[in-house]
């Protein structure tokens, strides 16, 4: 909000996945009939987030819930590859995920995350998905550009989000464009 820089520090429990988590695993195609711009269907999308993951990753969403107990996802390389469905970052955001820390992202997923402002897609210099475990207490600090695993006490460098950060903070490209006067405020 005006003059106030919201804190770019996110703390919570992390959920860990590895490489090439594609959008079918983030939100299986059978749920794409849900339209993200409809509020009740947005909620529903959240309840199906990560429903396509192989079971060995553990339980992301408890049965019957629409919010996950995790607020951070730790991932390997090429997170969000596959389809261009915006339902993927939306489902994660709707489920309560605030930030994903991955080695790298697929292009369209990264772009959709910024455009929607649903969650921060941050890149880490190191391959931390091999060192983190589900439920570890983690802080993602996008002011110092580090991620801290409180369960192990270790700290790792993040790549700065640059100009994408304020867009996500504002709530997506439309909100950012209005906030900065690029497009007129909604009537």
């Amino acid at each position, binding site marked *: 909000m005006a003059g106030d820089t919201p804190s770019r520090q996110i703390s919570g429990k992390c959920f860990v996945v590895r490489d*090439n988590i*594609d959008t*079918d*695993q983030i939100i*299986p*195609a*059978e749920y*794409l*009939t*849900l*339209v*993200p*711009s*409809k509020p009740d269907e947005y909620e529903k999308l959240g309840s199906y987030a990560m429903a*396509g*993951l*192989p*079971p060995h990753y553990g339980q992301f969403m408890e049965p019957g819930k629409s919010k996950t107990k995790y607020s951070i996802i730790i991932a390997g*390389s*090429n997170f969000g*590859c*596959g*389809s*261009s*469905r*915006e*339902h993927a970052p939306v489902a994660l955001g709707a489920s309560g995920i605030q930030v994903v820390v991955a080695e*790298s992202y*697929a*292009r*369209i997923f990264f*772009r*959709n995350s910024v*455009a*929607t402002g649903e969650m921060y897609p941050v890149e880490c210099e190191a391959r931390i998905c091999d060192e983190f475990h589900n439920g570890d207490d983690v802080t993602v600090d996008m002011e110092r550009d580090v991620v801290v695993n409180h369960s192990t006490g270790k700290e790792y460098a993040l790549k700065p989000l640059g100009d994408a950060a304020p867009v996500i903070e504002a709530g*997506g*490209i*439309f909100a950012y464009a209005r906030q900065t006067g690029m497009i007129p405020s*909604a*009537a």
Partner: protein
Amino acid sequence: MEGAMLHSSYFSVNARPMSRRSSTISAVMAPPQQQRPPASTGAVKHAMTLTEKILARASEKTKLVPGENVWVNADVLMTHDVCGPGTIGIFKKEFGANAKVWDREKIVIIPDHYIFTADERANRNVDILRDFSKEQSIKYFYDITDRGDFRANPDYKGVCHVALAQEGHCRPGEVLFGTDSHTCTAGAFGQFATGIGNTDAGFIMGTGKILLKVPGTLRFVLDGEMPSYLLAKDLILQIIGEITVSGATYKSMEFVGTAVERMTMEDRMTLCNMAIEAGGKNGVVPADEVTYSYLKGKTDKEFESVYSDAGATFIQEYRIDVSKLEPVVAKPHSPDKRALARDCKDVKIDRVYIGSCTGGKTEDFVAAAKLLNKAGQKVKVPTFLVPATQKVWVDLYAMPLPEADGKTCAQIFEEAGCDTPASPSCAACLGGPKDTYARMNEPKVCVSTTNRNFPGRMGHKEAQIYLASPYTAAASALTGFVSDCRDFL
């Protein structure tokens, strides 16, 4: 067997720039090299790639460099039943309930994903598209109202990427955005085409433009005589296996060379279609006489082809001698898990699927029918056929297959014991609602001509999908195992 000389360990060679060649392995794909590309048009001060030139024109600039962010004007925006309703929702929310789209003749709306299903929300989504198209007088809306019989819907096309080409919406030099990652298929026409999300599409719907980062280009030079048993699908699986599913992330993939020049438009579409499976922003083939002859009678819009300049800078250049390649598959669960089809001959399969924007075009079915006809045998596993569009479906029933005593593809499929060709749509390529035709509801093994084999892609999380060419798919249907199509051709 030709190609048997290839050492299988070749396939572990990394595609990153290599300083030396192995002394014992005859590489199918030469190490990437920086070198001056072959001929191109015109004298220019600032050499650019094909993709850079299209984006320069579309952003009203005389020159561009990769990494630059530019506002690009769209020539066409395509959306479908899965992402259209969300895009429309964003457009209405951001531009107002009474806002008009930027150009009613430049938006193409194609229901294709979840059509032949009893799922109420899926049906509602097509209704949303219809209401919006009517309200906005959208010129190109390919509607379906009678789901019981697709033939009762003359406007209905089917899979958007194939329909875009068949209906003349793909033109050289233009910029096409679509709310579907396989929008890159249209790069086959020498245009810039890429997939976007709902929010970006909502923005384009209102303004006709979008902010894009100019991609650098990987160039793939495919030379040599294409063996009779290979199809474009083998080439793109070969390339993805080489550079991995993220090898072209943020990059353009340009396909050139004598093998590409000899390809049909549908072959080129297969090649460009899977650029996204390597993470690519777009795939592109320079337009030529093959392109122009395909376009004849499909569009009366003027267009201007552009080509990479001699001296344009490519991130990397890969040279591939296609004459040395063998039929390949991508093993579960990633499109870059390349293996020779003959090395998977012990993999027992439960079904075969021929369909989608990648492998459901007329020529894909012609290839499958040709092999089945030559073999004269029955399939050993259920074989599902889903024509991409209504036109493809008609071709299967109306077009006599060459050298097959006047038989049509449909007749050959019936004789071989395949399932009757289904209603055109995306169908089970991406699973979809539970009642989707040929969806994998059990953890079975499928050889498929589609594009992705990540866990759960065709339905069940533990289902195993082997991506393959239509030849390989048909051969595998005859044996019940992943098979080498050379055994039948």
